[in-house]
């Protein structure tokens, strides 16, 4: 990538990922500004967090792909991508199960948006990273272990 394009894009990123997503029509402004789901985001365990987003007992699904490192390079910014191949996906939530507050984010999708999100999450320790997808009034889930290690001592 040439340096100019990189700088331009960095400037755009500085303007805020949400703004870019709104501009691209992926998120409705009302959703971006929607009321803070306090109960779900402040839940201290996975069960309460899932209840909070209306997915108390999601079914395991092989149509959800989580792309995340096996071992995090930096627990403060762990890149996570979730792809949902489930038709009519309306939301994708990410949970880091052993975080003090497991629910990291819940993304509402509309207007036939592809079931794909990419973000970076903070993780305090080795844990399952769980994706919860809502589609057609039902909920589905998949998980992948991401290891957070103190490092050093290799090779």
């Amino acid at each position, binding site marked *: *990538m040439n340096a100019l394009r*990189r700088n331009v*894009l*960095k400037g755009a990123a500085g303007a805020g990922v949400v703004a870019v997503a709104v501009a691209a029509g992926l998120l409705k402004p009302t959703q971006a500004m929607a009321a803070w789901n306090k109960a779900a985001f402040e839940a201290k365990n996975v069960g309460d967090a899932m209840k909070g987003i209306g997915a108390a007992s999601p079914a395991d699904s092989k149509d959800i792909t989580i*792309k995340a*490192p*096996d*071992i*995090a*390079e*930096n627990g403060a910014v762990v*890149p996570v991508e979730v792809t949902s191949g489930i038709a009519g996906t309306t939301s994708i939530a990410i949970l880091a199960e052993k975080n003090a507050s497991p629910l990291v984010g819940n993304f509402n999708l509309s207007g036939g948006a592809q079931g794909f999100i990419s973000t970076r999450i903070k993780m305090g320790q*080795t844990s399952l990273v769980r994706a919860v997808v809502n589609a057609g009034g039902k909920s589905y889930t998949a998980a992948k*272990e991401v*290891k957070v*290690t*103190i*490092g*050093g*001592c*290799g*090779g």
Partner: protein
Amino acid sequence: MHMNRREFLQLLAVAAASGMALDSKSALAGNAPANFYDVPRHGNVSFLHFTDCHAQLLPVWFREPNVNLGVGAALGKVPHLVGQHLLKEYGIKPGGAEAHAFTYLDFTEAAKVYGKVGGFAHLKTLVDKMRAQRPGALLLDGGDTWQGSATSLWTNAQDMVDACIKLGVDVMTPHWESTFGAKRVMEIVNKDFKKANIDFVAQNIVTNDFGDQVFKPYTIKEQNGVKIAVIGQAFPYTPIANPRWMVPDWSFGIRDDSMQKWVDEARAKGAQVVIVLSHNGMDVDLKMAGRVTGIDAIFGGHTHDGVPQPVKIKNAKGMTLVTNAGSNGKFLGVMDFEVKGKRVTSFKYRLLPVFSNLLPADPAMDAYIKKVRAPYESKLSEKLAVSDDFLYRRGNFNGTWDQLLVDAMMAVKGADAAFSPGFRWGTTLLPGDAITMERLMDQTAITYPQTTLTSMTGEMIKTIMEDVADNLFNADPYYQQGGDMVRVGGIEYTIAPNAAIGKRIGSMTIKGKPVAASKTYKVAGWAPVAEGATGEPIWDVVATYLRDKKVIKGLKLNEPKIIGVGKSNPGIANYKGGVS
């Protein structure tokens, strides 16, 4: 003729007594065929591979491990075979030159007969000999080439860069190279390597911001009219095992999916042979070979396994060969492929030990090495102490060299306990050898050598040990980092490699008393991965200790009791710490 250990030792005694050690050619006559290095060419496409030489320009001693446990699916399988188990697997005659090269067996006695291994002047002679029979053969450098010696540290890797150019390297992929910093790596790749036409490839290094490739993922070459792709796979956990701040803008990882993409792209461009030059470590390579299709061979390193023959791994669309070529300049892998009808139809592989006494030094390389060392000779040759003990590092849990480092740290820093990283590089010293500054630097020459003294609770100490143990013994290779267990001074413990994380370490005692979870202990260590550390370099701490001691003898090796791996586990032999 089969020779048992007793007969072998008698032969060695006779050989040493009659001065044969000075001329290993005659001593070897009975054990190594005169045509040891005659390797007739097979087929039409060839690769020469060395890896993990750790900047050793001169011949050295290097002892293979007596503990290299496999966990999960790797239990009892290559490369987790030591000593007699390895010889049996590959049908290598005990007591011969190859048995000495591939195992720890009778190391000190055999070393005197067979002499030192490696050295770039000798490696150059062997490379040229193989190339003469294989016009167009590509020379692959698997990385961990720029780090590991005093001179590479003091010349900022330049001595190794120039040596590799003179050796005729064609393609390289990195690991420890990154510890010279991203800027220095880019300078070498864009100037020295570009001028010398060396391809630096790494499909799994991308920028942190946009995920762009930092280096070429692969290069296409041609040999005897056959198109070949060489894909690079850098050590996936560089920013975790080594300081992340040295490569702040780069992200690594295993990246199977992009590997598959590059393999498919190379095939689509007409590559008839696709190989991967990898620094994954052998267990990771074996797993990757089962998941990614279309690779003819993975030439591996990192875990320093001297594996005599490739492991064949079947996957959804065919078969991939996986090799690992040892360390410290000790071996050169020679892979010959026959390519017919646009595909590989057969192969022949040899992992040739580089016996410096059997390969005359290449005069030009020899002169170069002398020249590059000259400004440092007096510093390198400073005699710090003499060791009556046998000093080695390699092994899952401890080595006498590491015991010396932790003993020195505890004594000089007044610590209750000490940690030393489970590095797999570092040369071997025979009993009676002088410990020079150069040999000490072989164990310690890194760009983040600071020592630290930290107050830690017993709980924190256990957490660290559990964390490192999981990096070594996680049943899934993709969660392993490829080093050995952290070396521990002052604390005795037990370890259950097959247990889950948090449950492996037990019975921790310090000076005979149980380690208390809430009590605070002074713990010395070195090689901090965090930015801004300021302690005295490890080599100064250990040099102080050695100058004071003058003679090293009776080192008490602190090895944990190993639980649950089985007494007959082929990954462990001659272990004094206790196995069940």
